[in-house]
């Protein structure tokens, strides 16, 4: 591994760590903010459907964590593409990592994050224009999640295909 590649991988690891830490921060704060205070994540998620706002709360957190993650990756991505301005050979050296099995798995995760953020974002945009109730907007949320899975799974097969020969 070259120094440039090691720098790229270290930066990516730091970004993933920061995004994970941000997710933990958001979740732990919500634990305090949620009425009733205590109760595990699973307990709160398995609340009866009358507690619909709980689902929307989690959609809101997922939107923020995915957004921060995509933005942090964009910062790194601009630097790694920027290497081509310094030297195409240096760019190729770092870029070769994108084809590695580990980075391909990361790319699938990145795509899932982008898809969820895009579809949930369009849902939020739609809710700003059309004043749907809580139930209808929850149905749209599951549609966004469904579209994310429906597109991410076949895309994952394409992205990961070279790993399996």
């Amino acid at each position: 591994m070259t120094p440039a590649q090691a720098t790229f991988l270290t930066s990516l690891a730091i970004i993933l760590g920061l995004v994970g830490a941000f997710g933990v921060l958001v979740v732990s704060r919500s634990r305090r903010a949620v009425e009733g205070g205590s109760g595990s994540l699973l307990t709160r998620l398995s609340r009866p459907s009358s507690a619909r706002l709980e689902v929307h709360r989690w959609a809101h957190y997922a939107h923020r964590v995915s957004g921060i993650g995509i933005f942090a990756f964009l910062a790194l991505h601009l630097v790694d593409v920027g290497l081509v301005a310094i030297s195409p050979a240096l760019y190729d050296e770092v870029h070769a990592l994108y084809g590695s099995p580990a980075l391909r798995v990361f790319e699938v995760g990145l795509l899932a994050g982008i898809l969820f953020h895009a579809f949930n974002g369009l849902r939020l945009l739609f809710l700003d224009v059309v004043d749907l109730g809580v139930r209808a907007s929850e149905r749209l949320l599951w549609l966004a999640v469904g579209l994310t899975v429906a597109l991410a799974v076949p895309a994952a097969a394409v992205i990961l295909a070279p790993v399996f020969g």
Partner: protein
Amino acid sequence: MSARADRPGRPGPAWLTIRATALLLAVLVLAHFAVTHLLTDVAETDSAFLAERWQSGIVAATDALMLVAAVVHGVAGTWAIVDDHVGSPVRRRWIRRLVAGAGAAMIAVGTTTLLVVLGR
């Protein structure tokens, strides 16, 4: 967002910015990912691929638009998060400036890259 909370019912500029760029990015970013990971294998998107891609003025202009929209959207989104999580107005102002500065640097890096490759 504080600007919105001050005047309920009236969208502030940050609120509008996030939504306008969101529509653009929902198309541009997904198309970008499809081109660089699905239509082309990521291993083949080397420096030769980049040079050839940016030969087209439309592609270069689209990438520049996507860069600016993504950074503006990211900065405005991060500002909204900072407004919610940072209580002190002084700290909030400094973090907002820091995020805006990072965004400006990102746009500078991206456009410089594009211009250097186009000038070759």
